[in-house]
């Protein structure tokens, strides 16, 4: 009827339409991935394990798939890089659980379910996400979540929570367990988004010391056993050097952008990038830092730490390129596009014809890309297969 059609064009109709449109837009704004793929390799460079959305997949260096792990009993989402040991793969999920997977066949060994406190029937801590990799020392696992760090005893058939250390903000970094008698007592170091670096007694979770980083720390500290120091980058444009035993600040270095990943320590030099696209080589001296070499590689972020292999420093950028730099003269060896922002990490595999670089992205069509170190040519790639 005419009146009906006319009514549809009233301002109220438009208001309702706009509100619904806005609601749809809001949903769209929130859409997309929550994170990039979590990637890790074993120490021999034979296996790469990729965590993304609902599955964890293991590939050999030649690109063949070993297994796919899914937890079909839950809506578990995996973005944390896994820890690959000799016989197991440990990975945390977005529901705060830790999965122990048989490295050989991808079968589940156990799942650690966090103890959930209930108040009036409502669950607390159910969304205690794990975004960083777990760390292992003997029969102990350590991992960070939304509330702090947890220690698990994995000596039995089922894991058992030993202690929890609470922080004021989430922990996205992998805990660093150090047991070096020359340096001091075994210590667990944890960097948190609450802008602190904590040194904990790994036996009971008690705090030995903590330092204010004046900025959030997303990655773990790097141990310099030679000088007895820890190096850690922050989102406050600074890289710090702290004394291992008491956390006293030894030196700090100002950067052009936020530092996300842990620096690479090789031959008493720290290599790292920042989110403004700068790459740094910062020498370590007895009293702090030496003269820095830095170059602006790109306007896009260098989120992942570089790798150094056979005298070539390789960096992955959010500008969808991977850069290889000859370390001796700092000349550009090659740069290659990979078709997606390279934010997920950079690792090395032992390929049949030499080292392969593994680059992770958050693009489902280019989730994993491997490049040859010698010329940057693509060897193989993997997309997300649901």
């Amino acid at each position: 009827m005419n009146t009906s059609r006319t009514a549809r064009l009233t301002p109220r109709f438009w208001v309702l339409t706009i509100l619904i449109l806005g609601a749809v837009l809001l949903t769209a704004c929130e859409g997309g991935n929550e994170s990039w793929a979590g990637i890790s390799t074993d120490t021999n460079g034979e296996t790469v394990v990729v965590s993304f959305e609902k599955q964890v997949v293991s590939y050999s260096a030649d690109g063949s798939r070993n297994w796919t792990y899914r937890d079909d009993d839950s809506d578990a989402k995996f973005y944390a890089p896994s820890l690959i040991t000799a016989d197991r793969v440990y990975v945390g999920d977005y529901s705060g659980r830790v999965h122990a997977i048989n490295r050989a066949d991808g079968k589940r060994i156990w799942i650690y379910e966090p103890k959930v406190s209930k108040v009036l029937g409502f669950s607390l801590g159910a969304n205690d996400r794990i975004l960083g990799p777990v760390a292992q020392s003997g029969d102990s696992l350590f991992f960070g979540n939304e509330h702090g760090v947890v220690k698990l005893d994995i000596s039995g058939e089922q894991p058992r929570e030993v202690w929890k250390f609470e922080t004021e903000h989430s922990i996205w970094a992998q805990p660093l367990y150090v047991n070096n008698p020359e340096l001091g007592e075994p210590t667990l170091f944890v960097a948190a988004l609450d802008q602190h670096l904590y040194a904990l007694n790994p036996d009971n979770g008690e705090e030995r010391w903590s330092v204010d980083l004046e900025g959030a720390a997303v990655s773990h500290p790097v141990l310099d056993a030679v000088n007895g120091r820890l190096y850690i980058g922050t989102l406050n444009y600074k890289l710090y050097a702290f004394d291992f035993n008491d956390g006293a600040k030894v030196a700090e270095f100002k950067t052009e952008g936020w530092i996300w990943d842990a620096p690479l320590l090789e031959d008493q030099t720290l290599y790292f990038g920042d989110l403004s696209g700068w790459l740094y080589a910062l020498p370590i001296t007895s009293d702090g830092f030496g003269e820095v070499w830095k170059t602006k590689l790109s306007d896009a972020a260098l989120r992942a730490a570089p790798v150094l292999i056979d005298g070539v420093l390789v960096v992955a950028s959010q500008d969808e390129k991977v850069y290889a730099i000859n370390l001796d003269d700092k000349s550009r060896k090659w740069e290659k596009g990979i078709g997606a922002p390279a934010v997920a990490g950079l690792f090395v595999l032992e390929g049949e014809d030499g080292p392969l670089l593994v680059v992770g992205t958050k693009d489902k069509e280019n989730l994993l890309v491997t490049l040859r170190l010698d010329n940057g040519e693509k060897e193989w790639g993997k997309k997300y297969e649901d």
Partner: protein
Amino acid sequence: MLDIIINPFITLLLVLYGLLGRNVFLAIVGFTIIVRFALLPLTIKQQRSFKRMQELQPKQRMLQEKYKNDRERLTQEQMALYREHGVNPFAGCLPLLIQLPIFLSLWRAILATLASTPDQLLELQDRILIGGLDHLVPLKNTFLWMNLALPDQFYILPILVVITTYLQQKLIMPVTPTTSSSGNDAADQAARMSKQMTTFMPLLFGFFALTYSSGLSIYFITSNIVGIIQYAMMGKADVRRLIGKEAPKKEEKAVSAIVTGEVEAGDVIEAPTKTPAKPAAPVRQPRMAKEPVEAGSVVSATGRPLKPGITERKLSGSSAAASSGTTTKSAGKTSKTPPSRNRPKK
């Protein structure tokens, strides 16, 4: 595209967070209040526009009825009506259209600064427009029992979001009673739409509160409360609407009198009476009608259709027949309607 708004919002939110003792709850509340009050002129404009449109509704309905078989003429007449009253039918939507990207940006700014996912945190560096705020990132996301980067597990905030959204909708949306039993009348459509909005919007925002960060729920709740306060300050929030009643208006009564033919243009209309609303007065047929008058047409006491804008009195209210109790003078004679104690002085 929205970055031009989002980035200043993120910066402002960080400044507030730093100033308010790194309390993310206070920062979001303060931030929402500032933005809502910055948008107050738009809100007022929107409300005025809605009001004017609402005032024209009786005339619109009459035109719809009169030209129900001639859509082209109807459109022309409606446009003429709008022109005559200086009303742009889309003017009420324009402020809303302007506000929409602002509220979207507000939402995004809160999500970005809480940085509940690595993706959000990674983008944040380039969004901070003032140096020296980086040490505040990401906002400390715990407040009372909540992790503001995650949905409220107790469902307290989503429930509050639903309640406050409902209250705001209910308090500010004018009650549009249905007039037609057939259910296909334009007024019925508008009434149904109003009802749908007051049901749909709280549920929609409740769903968002259940799904997304608690920080957003705090924004919704604060925004709703500020909205209610703003409307109350403007005199627009009417508690009676919570129970589905509209406050009696003098304009309605005046229109009623005109429509029912009890008063002619130029006649003196009573000042608002303090007497409570009375049952509907019977509709009187216009006298001296020279031609058949369609039901619902605006006519004078002489039976001639009234020209638009014939009186400066506002034509609000949905149904002439629903209003009553007005004491009028008609053609120099006192009408038989109940006497009033508030007759204006001549």
